[in-house]
């Protein structure tokens, strides 16, 4: 592909703008960045609108913008699971997450593992929650790089040999620098710019492209008829429904989601956002349809994009579509939106993983007497380590691994559901039982995924019929069953550790301030 100078210039200009904003954000809602809750949660000062942009920029990532339409492009209707996924998640967030916010604010928790530590008085269960979070997040950061890589290649930037990863390294170096200096304030500020750019891009696409191909019916007519709907059988329905239900159960357990929730300034902010965030779901549904538009325009059959499709597969569908239908300057704008869309979640994810490491591993197990400054310094260092690790992952391993690891990440993170979500309502479950249930679920989920060639839907033989369902759902049922049965046993023979939280913590409107335990 020839170098697209106009697009590249626009792209670089927007990157320069967000770099400036990222550094300037250090002074926004000023706080002492040598304290972990200030660096890693922005002091919990974000109101409704900023939280909306932050969570929107955080949950709907660059990889989503590339991979969801790519799935629609290749697999059709199945890709639309992204829509009901976000329909079921917000009522759940509305009811459950204000409780987490309140108890976290009252007790000074900054991670889900902190809450588990305080609720169950069990550092090992908290360690399991922290490790699961870190493990699930790292491949997710790596995937953001794939989104960035695809759009950079689409602008015709082709470097030879050792320089081939230079654009990625530069982008991540910028990201690492403003993250280090500004903490969570940087991605929050940048998310505002990025989300507005994404909305403009997607609305331009859905107004212009169907018009050019002759209407929405032509767009849907381009989809092979057997892929336009799900197959008419129970297995296709259970597969689809469990896929979006399991994804919804997992979404807000991810560390970057918890960070977004806890950085908000009140529990009302969370409730309001549960009603407002579905606006992004609508956007995501339109984005999925970009895959069908790519089919309608026929970009996969155009010789100009043949090589890129060979290299990136269906992930090239959206970049090819934009190159084909938009003028160069707008291609640059749209690609900058996707590229910046990679930086925002990558930044929040690495901050969230760093918070977990610093608070729940470093302070809990390595240096219990550390002061606030040491703790936040450790987090800043770990956020760099997470990014370098993600970069290494993409440079040295096949992209397939990152995609498989991210699939596993979704299956892993759901195993913190019993400890965290049930824990918000009851202390009945025994912490050792939860730990063993967690282990059983992790092993079962990983094993099923590997045995299933890393496809998410597993067909289980039950009572003479096969029931296909998302592996996360099957394995979390096992996790929950083990946790309940062992709780009955353990609670009968021993008293469990002290719960430092009290019922009123879960309704508190205002905290006693952030900081330590």
């Amino acid at each position, binding site marked *: 592909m020839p170098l697209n100078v106009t697009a590249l210039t626009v792209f670089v200009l927007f990157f320069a703008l967000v770099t400036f904003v990222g550094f300037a954000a250090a002074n926004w809602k000023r706080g002492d960045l040598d304290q972990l809750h200030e660096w890693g949660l922005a002091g919990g000062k974000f109101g409704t609108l900023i939280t909306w942009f932050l969570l929107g920029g955080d949950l709907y990532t660059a990889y989503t913008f590339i991979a969801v339409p790519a799935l629609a492009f290749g697999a059709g*209707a199945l890709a*639309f699971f992204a*829509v*009901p996924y*976000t*329909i*079921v998640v*917000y*009522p759940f967030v*509305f*009811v459950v997450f*204000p*409780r987490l916010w309140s108890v976290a604010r*009252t007790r000074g928790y900054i991670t889900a593992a902190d809450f588990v530590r305080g609720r169950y008085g069990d550092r090992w269960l908290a360690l399991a929650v922290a490790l699961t979070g870190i493990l699930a997040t790292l491949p997710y950061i790596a995937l953001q790089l794939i989104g960035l890589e695809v759009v950079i290649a689409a602008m015709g930037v082709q470097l030879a040999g050792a320089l081939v990863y230079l654009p990625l390294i530069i982008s991540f170096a910028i990201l690492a620098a403003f993250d280090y200096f500004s903490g969570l304030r940087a991605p929050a500020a940048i998310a505002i710019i990025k989300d507005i750019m994404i909305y403009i891009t997607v609305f331009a696409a859905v107004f212009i492209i*169907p018009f050019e191909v002759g*209407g*929405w*019916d*032509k*767009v*849907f007519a381009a989809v092979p008829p057997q892929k*336009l*709907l*799900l197959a*008419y059988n129970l297995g*296709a*329905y259970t597969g*689809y*429904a469990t896929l*979006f*239900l399991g994804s919804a159960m997992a979404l807000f357990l991810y560390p970057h989601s918890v960070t977004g929730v806890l950085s908000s300034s*009140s529990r*009302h902010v969370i*409730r*309001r956002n*549960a*009603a*407002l965030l*579905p*606006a992004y*779901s*609508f956007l995501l*549904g339109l984005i999925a*349809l970009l895959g069908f538009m790519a089919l309608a325009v026929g970009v996969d059959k155009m010789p100009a994009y043949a090589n890129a499709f060979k290299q990136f597969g269906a992930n090239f569908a959206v970049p090819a579509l934009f190159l084909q239908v938009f003028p160069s300057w707008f291609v640059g704008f749209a690609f900058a939106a996707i590229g910046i869309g990679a930086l925002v979640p990558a930044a929040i994810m690495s901050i969230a993983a760093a918070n977990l490491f610093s608070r729940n591993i470093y302070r809990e197990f390595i240096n219990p007497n550390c002061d606030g400054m040491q703790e936040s310094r450790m987090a800043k260092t770990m956020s760099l380590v997470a990014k370098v690790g993600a970069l290494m992952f993409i440079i040295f391993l096949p992209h397939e691994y990152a995609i498989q690891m991210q699939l596993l990440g979704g299956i892993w993170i759901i195993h913190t559901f019993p400890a965290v979500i049930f824990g918000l309502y009851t202390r009945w479950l025994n912490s050792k039982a939860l730990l063993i249930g967690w282990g059983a679920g992790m092993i079962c989920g990983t094993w099923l995924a590997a045995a299933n060639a890393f496809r998410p839907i597993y067909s289980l033989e039950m009572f003479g019929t096969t029931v296909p369902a998302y592996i996360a759902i099957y394995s979390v049922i096992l996790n929950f069953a083990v946790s309940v049965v062992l709780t009955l046993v353990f609670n009968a023979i021993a008293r469990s550790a002290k719960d430092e939280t009290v019922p*009123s*913590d*879960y*309704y*508190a*409107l*205002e905290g006693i301030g952030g900081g330590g335990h």
Partner: protein
Amino acid sequence: MAGNNDNGAKDKGGPILLLLLVPLLVLWVPLYNTVEPTLFGFPFFYWFQLAWIFVSMIITAAVYYGTEPRAER
């Protein structure tokens, strides 16, 4: 809300929270896995799920206004 340290207050809730179960209707996949009726060229499968986003937003907003006392907003 400012300075309110009323930690003893219960979550306001009640039967209105049951409305939040309505969005879960999407779990019943056979309901919408059809092409007809189409709307603006969109098969039912697609426009139903997109429309359901707005239904769930309206319901969540209604529950919000139904459960949060005016003074706290």
